[in-house]
């Protein structure tokens, strides 16, 4: 134990002059904000080269020792740990600078998923925000992000979330009304907006009517709506089926102007039905008198 203590003290005594020499040769700020102007003070005399080495960036300046070297705003803009080296003909001195992200947010990366979903889904919409400064450094200091989802009729959901390590996440419910909802994320006065399409769900029911048309039956659905009352969009397939005497006739018909219609052969005693996806409609037995 005693030998270890003696070794530690000896090491510190040997290293101390070097540390002092470094401090004397370069005086750099411990940390600066990304893009800020700063200065490095050197001591001694004679010519030297000053290197600053950091993430994606290397600077070199020829300097006269003993002067203060100024760096303009924006010189160091990538956040990270930088090494400062003063190199003379006979020796070199080092120091370190931490470049921190600027505190003022300038840009948000806003990932909103999905871009289209059915109405009435709990936590169906997720938003993730990453906060960046003007130099695209991720701001890791906590910040308040306000998420807002508003539908065309003005109904708004708002969640306020603190960023953690530069990111904030939230989940929102899709509303009961179809339409293009505006999903915004705001940090300070920086806003990013996404559009989330809320589309009708499955038809709540299918009501079909039949009427004779010459040798055929004209089948037509009532306008299809989901269980929230939204009109099912045109193009949705309705499958009409006619079953008669061991045979069958089918047609996949797209909704046009809200309804689906088709003409099928008239067979006495035929059973007529309609379906869309996994939703079944009413059945009609066709009787001719």
């Amino acid at each position, binding site marked *: 134990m005693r030998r270890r203590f003696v070794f530690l003290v000896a090491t510190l005594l040997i290293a101390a002059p070097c540390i002092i020499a470094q401090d004397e040769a370069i005086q750099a700020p411990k940390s600066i904000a990304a893009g800020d102007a700063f200065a490095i003070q050197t001591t001694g005399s004679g010519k030297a080269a000053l290197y600053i080495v950091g993430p994606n960036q290397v600077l070199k300046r020829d300097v006269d020792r003993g002067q203060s070297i100024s760096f303009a705003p924006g010189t160091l803009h990538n956040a990270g740990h930088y090494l400062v080296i003063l190199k003379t003909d006979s020796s070199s001195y080092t120091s370190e600078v931490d470049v921190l992200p600027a505190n003022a947010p300038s840009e948000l*990366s806003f990932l909103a998923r999905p871009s*289209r979903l059915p109405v009435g889904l709990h936590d169906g919409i997720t938003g993730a925000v990453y906060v960046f400064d003007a130099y695209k450094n991720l701001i890791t200091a906590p910040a308040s992000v306000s998420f807002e989802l508003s539908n065309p009729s003005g109904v708004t959901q708002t969640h306020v979330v603190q960023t953690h390590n530069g990111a904030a996440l939230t989940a929102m419910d899709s509303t009961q009304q179809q339409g293009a909802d505006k999903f915004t994320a705001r940090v300070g006065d920086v806003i990013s907006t996404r559009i989330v399409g809320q589309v009708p769900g*499955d038809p709540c029911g299918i009501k079909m009517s039949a009427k004779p048309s010459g040798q055929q039956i004209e089948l037509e659905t009532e306008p299809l709506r989901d269980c929230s009352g939204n009109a099912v*969009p045109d*193009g949705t*397939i309705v499958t009409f089926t006619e079953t008669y005497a061991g*045979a069958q006739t089918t047609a996949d018909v797209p909704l046009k102007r809200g309804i689906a219609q088709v003409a099928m*052969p008239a067979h006495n005693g035929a059973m007529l039905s309609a379906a*869309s*996806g996994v939703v079944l409609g009413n059945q009609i037995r066709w009787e001719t008198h």
Partner: protein
Amino acid sequence: MNKGGLLAAFLMAATIVLVIVGTIWPAPSALAYAGGQHLFQSSATPEDAVNSLGQAIQAKAWEKAYSSLANKAQFTEPQFEHDLTGYYSSLLTYATLDHFDVRPLHSSADNADMQITLYWSTVVGLAPVSRDIHVTKNGDQWQVTWPVAKQPVVPPQVIPVNYLRWDVIYPGAGDDWGTQDVEAPHVRIVDMHPVQRAEGVVIMGELLNEDVVPAYVSVSATLLGKNQSPIATESSFDKISHLLLPKQVTPFLIRFPDRSLAGVSGIRMTPFSTLISASADPVIEIDNEHLNPAPDASLTGQLINQSGQIANVAHVIGTFYDKSGQVVWVADRYVDTALLPQTPVPFSIHIPEDLARTISSQRTTVATYSEGGAL
């Protein structure tokens, strides 16, 4: 002379000899392609007459085939050609005749009835087309009376079509990272059923597009071994309707040849969907669908194009269910003629004999291709 020179001289001499032999005694097929007449058999018997006609059709020697017919006064040569290859663009338009079979049905001293089955080689495989033909004796030669199918005539008219169409705009190259993309269509496998067949493992089921936009879909399956490691992966290829409109359902069938379910501990299903520009037309009605029992079990019916647009190729897929409503088989057939507006076109899908008795219901879907459009 060194060895190389000797070999060269020998090759030259052999080439000259073979050219002379080929010119004096040409192979029949070579002669036919060179415009000669000796490829086709004589017509000394009814079979010879039908065979000769089949060979002429195979060689696309339309003039020769037409001139050999007994009833050529009833139609023109172009009508005869179109009767075989279609009046409108269809599967047969770019097909060649791979081979043909001739089967006698009835014969007497100067009349015979034969059946010729033409196996057309199309982009989706062999398409067999059968014709019953009458053959009559004319002097010492037999001649075929060709049954030209009357091309249905669509009366001139204007058919109003409210085209419903979807187009897709994707993010541009200059958009930032994180820019919102258009969501892929949401599809769901609503039924899946693996079975062991003699040829291997077959997985079948149904896929639903539960979104409000059209989807290009496919399904792949991976068989997992006892230690959950993948054994094999296959996809549905063309045993599926790849274009699904909103709320439309397609069957799918995936084959794993020479695999056994005994060595499978699990199956990983992977449905794939992507947005696709599509049109909701044409609407095809499937009329008079019949399940015909074994032997020769089949699903037959008629396709009726209810739109004004001609559908050049139709792919009919039948989904067959047992009494409990479970999918027991998926089979398909391409229709080799174009679907004209309001003109019925028959189809027939073969059902395996061993499954025919278990099938109690079916559902038929049709995918169509129109020139300038998509499946």
